[in-house]
């Protein structure tokens, strides 16, 4: 990475973020700046709030009902909880990749263009332009060579690793600033995990990536910075090397050493 971490400007800024599911408070006064163009790992034991925090970043939690949020989250300077924010536009710029690959039961080609069609951005583009967009998106996730001769095959026939790459490729035509990943390798074997991690490496710098992972080795390998959460609170945030070599907080030390959680 050419630019030192310390001088990168924040892409996402949460200020005093609290979130309740009914009476249960899942996030407690979370304030953090997530830097632009790097990979930030969210780590912590099950139930610590990391997935809830991730889902707050594109307001996906609201789909679950009975959710109340206070505080603000700014993405590139705009509070995403402002009343004038369009959820559709927000999710275009803040894309999400889930634990299990979720390709649509249509062709590979249509999967890549699906986001554009939903957002009505495909109309007005020629077929050649759309084909070119499909190719560049699939190339960006290192899937083009595998599927170029079968773009009209159903996406569900791909291997899980290829499906997950396709799910990432599907976000790219919408030109997101942020890609959220919720344990993107948990359904994959070691080879598939390696492939997704290599892909994340190539996306680094062009997108701000936030990844939830239970796999400590993956957090160490892939992320530039880590955020450690415990019982809904942000305990520590810093460069990954520091978090795993000389964490500041005893709770972080116990967790990364495997003595907690």
């Amino acid at each position: 990475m050419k630019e030192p971490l310390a001088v990168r400007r924040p892409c996402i800024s949460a200020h005093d973020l609290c979130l309740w599911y009914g009476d249960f408070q899942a996030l407690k006064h979370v304030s953090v700046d997530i830097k632009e163009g790097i990979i930030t790992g969210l780590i912590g034991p099950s139930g610590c709030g990391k997935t809830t925090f991730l889902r707050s970043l594109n307001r996906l939690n609201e789909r679950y009902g009975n959710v109340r949020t206070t505080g603000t989250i700014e993405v590139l300077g705009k509070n995403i909880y402002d009343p004038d924010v369009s959820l559709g536009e927000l999710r275009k710029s803040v894309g999400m990749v889930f634990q299990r690959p979720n390709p649509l039961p249509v062709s590979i080609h249509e999967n890549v263009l699906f986001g554009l069609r939903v957002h009505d951005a495909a109309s007005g583009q020629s077929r050649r332009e759309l084909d070119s967009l499909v190719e560049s998106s699939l190339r960006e996730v290192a899937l083009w060579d595998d599927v170029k001769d079968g773009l009209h095959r159903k996406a569900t026939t791909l291997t899980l690793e290829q499906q997950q790459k396709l799910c990432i490729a599907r976000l790219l035509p919408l030109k997101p600033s942020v890609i959220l990943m919720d344990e993107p390798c948990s359904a994959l074997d070691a080879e598939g995990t390696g492939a997704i991690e290599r892909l994340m490496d190539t996306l680094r710098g062009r997108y701000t990536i936030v990844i939830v992972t239970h796999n400590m080795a993956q957090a160490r390998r892939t992320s530039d910075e880590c955020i450690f959460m415990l019982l809904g609170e942000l305990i520590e945030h810093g460069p990954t090397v520091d978090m795993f070599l000389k964490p500041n907080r005893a709770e972080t030390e116990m967790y990364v050493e495997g003595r907690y959680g």
Partner: protein
Amino acid sequence: MRRFELELDALKAQILEMGVVAERMVARASEALVKRDRAIVADVLEGEETLDRFQVEIDGEAVRLITVYTPTAKDLRFLLMVVRINTELERIGDQAVNNCEYVEMFLSDPPARPLHDLSRMTDVTCEMVHGALAAFAAEDVDMARRVVALDDQVDELYRQTFKDLLAEGADDPDMVKRTMSLVLLARSIERIADHAENICEEVVFLVKGEDIRHQA
């Protein structure tokens, strides 16, 4: 206690055991000088073989623990520092063996004047080696910093001893061999103090993750 923690404890005990051997070698080499006793030299040389065995065993165990457990945080710092402290102790042992060689050179001549500064230098250096190991055992940063501060005394005593010995040698050409052996001995003791200082710096990194080397 988890197995990994038990294995870390065992490794620490092994380093401390190695430290006791190294510390004793330094003290015994000085004793050989004071008592003018060549028999002590054999004892020091035996210690070197023990240190070499420790070094190989400890390095092997540290590499195994890093490989098997992929440690993080303090466990990782501990294992990294164990490898370094292991090297420092082995070098302290090597210097003690060198000291014996210089003592042998010196003993072939009759005693000159009392070696007050050299004796004081040896005492402070032994105190530093002991203190460094105690700071590692207790993982005590304050103790480590106090030991680091003693190195200035050793350096000053070395400068003074060096100056005095040169002046002595200049007066009497027959004294050259004796002077040379004592200069080399003083230099070797000064290096032992440096290794003790390094161990203390490694203790600070182990406990706090702070690199205090080359800050003077």
